[in-house]
């Protein structure tokens, strides 16, 4: 798989590139800021671009804008955003602005090559990826009693995997369940939470994340 890595810290950029190369990925370009990244992507047309969320000049969320720009200009290139921010808000914004073939992982994942490789593979296959830490933080977040309490343990697990961006097939593999069981679980979850079933995985991720972290369960009428 061909990759471009963008991070303004040379230590991280070079380390990540070497790690990925060691793991068998083909790092075809490196960049230290958003314009450089966009040029690299334009030139090399990688499968996935790995982008730090904080880049010059403001070091806040340039990575999200760059991801959106790449997805708009090169629909075949997926984007994995690495971030320090635990808040689901940034991940949601990424999903809203660039709905598919994107991923949002916490930066400390980079040394866990297995997680990184899995995420890159899933993005390349067209899924979206949300960091499990963010999802579990959302599921576990303090809240009043509500529909979430009605979910069975299994349904909660399925909900978490859906929120991480996994397809039904991936959920089957992860939980060693039959496709039928998973589909039944998904239907139950949507019914209990009062969400509309969506045929499209990305919208499903967004709906679930919005439910968990957004306005759905918390605001009073």
């Amino acid at each position, binding site marked *: 798989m061909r990759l471009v890595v963008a991070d303004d810290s040379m230590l991280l950029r070079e380390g990540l590139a*070497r790690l990925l190369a060691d793991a068998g990925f083909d790092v075809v370009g490196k960049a230290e800021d958003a314009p450089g990244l966009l040029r690299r992507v334009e030139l090399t047309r990688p499968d996935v671009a790995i982008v730090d969320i904080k880049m010059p000049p403001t070091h806040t969320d340039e990575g999200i804008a760059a991801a959106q720009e790449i997805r708009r200009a090169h629909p075949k290139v997926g984007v994995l955003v690495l971030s320090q921010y635990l808040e689901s808000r940034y991940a949601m914004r990424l999903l809203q602005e660039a709905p598919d073939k994107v991923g949002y992982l916490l930066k400390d994942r*980079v040394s866990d090559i297995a997680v990184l490789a899995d995420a890159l593979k899933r993005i390349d296959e067209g899924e979206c990826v949300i960091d499990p830490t963010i999802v579990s933080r959302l599921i576990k977040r303090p809240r009043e009693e509500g529909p979430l309490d009605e979910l069975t343990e299994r349904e909660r697990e399925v909900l978490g995997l859906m929120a991480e961006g996994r397809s039904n097939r991936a959920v089957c593999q992860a939980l060693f369940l039959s496709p039928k069981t998973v589909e039944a679980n998904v239907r139950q979850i949507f019914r209990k939470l009062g969400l509309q079933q969506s045929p499209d995985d990305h919208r499903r991720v967004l709906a679930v994340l919005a439910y968990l972290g957004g306005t759905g369960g918390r605001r009073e009428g």
Partner: protein
Amino acid sequence: MLFRLALWPAGLALGAFSLAIARDEPASSFAGSSLGGAVALLGAGWALLACGLVFWGRRRGNAVGPLLVAAGCAWFLAEWDNPGVDSAAAFTIGLVLFAACPPVAAWAMLAYPGGRLGLREERAAVAIALAGAVLVLGLLPALFYDPATFGCVQCPDNLLLVSDDPGLVDDLNRVGFHLGLAWSLLLIAVAAWRVARSSRTRRRVVAPVVIAGCAYLGLVVATFTTSLERGFVGSGELERRLWLGQGAALAVLAATVAWGLLRARRTRSSLARLVVELGESAPPGGLRDGLAEALGDAELELAYPVGEDRFADGRGRPIDLALLDGRAATPLVREGRPVAFILHRADLLDNPELIEEVASAARLALENERLQAEARAQLEDLRSSRARIIEAGDAERRRLERDLHDGAQQRLVGLSLGLRLLRSRLGADEDGRLAARLDDAEAELGRAIAELRQLAHGIHPAVLSDEGLAAAVEALAEEAPVRIVDLPQERFSPAVETAAYLVVAEPAKTGAVRVSAQRLDGALVVDVEAEAEPDGLLDLKDRVGALDGRLEVERATAGGVRIRAEIPCG
């Protein structure tokens, strides 16, 4: 004081005495024996005397009062060079001072209302007129005038007579009347010039007095003109009518001055009423509103000196006297130092008596409000320095958060990458213990990174500066028991957002909270119902107070509290 009181009966007596002289020898007098003449003589003289004495009493140290008194006396003295007079001294005084009234009345007119002649031209004109009237027309001919030579057998002696020279007397008189014509016209011109170059407000004050004065001087000119050839003022029908007109003009002059006094008194009483109304419970800035109304300038401001070259209004807000924008600043001085400046329409306080009225009527209230303004300005200083300290602290926290994220955390992540690379280089044939220790180190590093992230987030949540209050509170709700009822999506200033965020985040540390925030009348109002009382209530109060806001805490049942913060947000 006694002297002034004594002048009242003296003036009355002077009038009566002069009338007696005129009645004694009606043919040689202006007043004659007619009722109209008596009325003109007494009316004009007494009016000037009375008005002058009252003015003198009201405005100590103002020359206008004494000058009007002098003019009234001089008006009477013109009758004293009458052959019918018994006393040689009175006759002589009459000879010298018969023409003294016009320059003295003109002096009073030009000095009105301040008491001083402001221009060099005015001073010169008055000096010339006095010299012309008293020296050239009065004293010089008197030195050579023997009444007997001129055929007046009943006249008393001229006490000043040096030598009898009728030809010289005639010549001197003719020169004197020519000169008199010139200085009378000069006085009229100077007065007109003065009115012309006054501002509108000042013109309203001085114009009536100047018009009456100039009418009088005009009649004097006419009288002098009829006397040019003759060398003395005749007592024919024309002269008599002109003299009656002069009397009327002088009476009007006295009346206009009296009217000015009356009006000033009205202003003073309205100012006094204002001060009384303000009383001790005057709201800050209330004096300004009152003065603005009393003086008729809605944009009037009061500026109090509150320190080295610094000024504040009644509410303590700073005022820059350099930025007057075409408005004037009039100092109200007390004991040699300005207690306040009135910033007003440029022509409003040209009338100096009004300033005195304002200063005396509002003195206590001004002093009171100045002290308040000073205290408020100090409070304002304190408040803004508190806001600056908090702002500096916040900026420091933001910087620290960024440093931790972009510096320490980046390095730790880089380090963990390095460990991972090292680990993969070890290969399967190496010592398994080393690999296990590397794994431990990596796990430890991972925990350090997570803790660092938490620490940085606690110092300052980046989402607050990036996306604002609503986003930050929603993010807070992912980790703390926060129930959101309502949050404004708009952005506020960083200081307001930080304060509002902490009003929610602090109580959320100790228990569940329910938050509702909205913009109400220029303030961000945050209502928090907290399960337990937060620890940092005082800090929260300081923070909200530094932004001019209020934080109210109400104990609810079961240890809970309701917190309401109102933070002005423009």
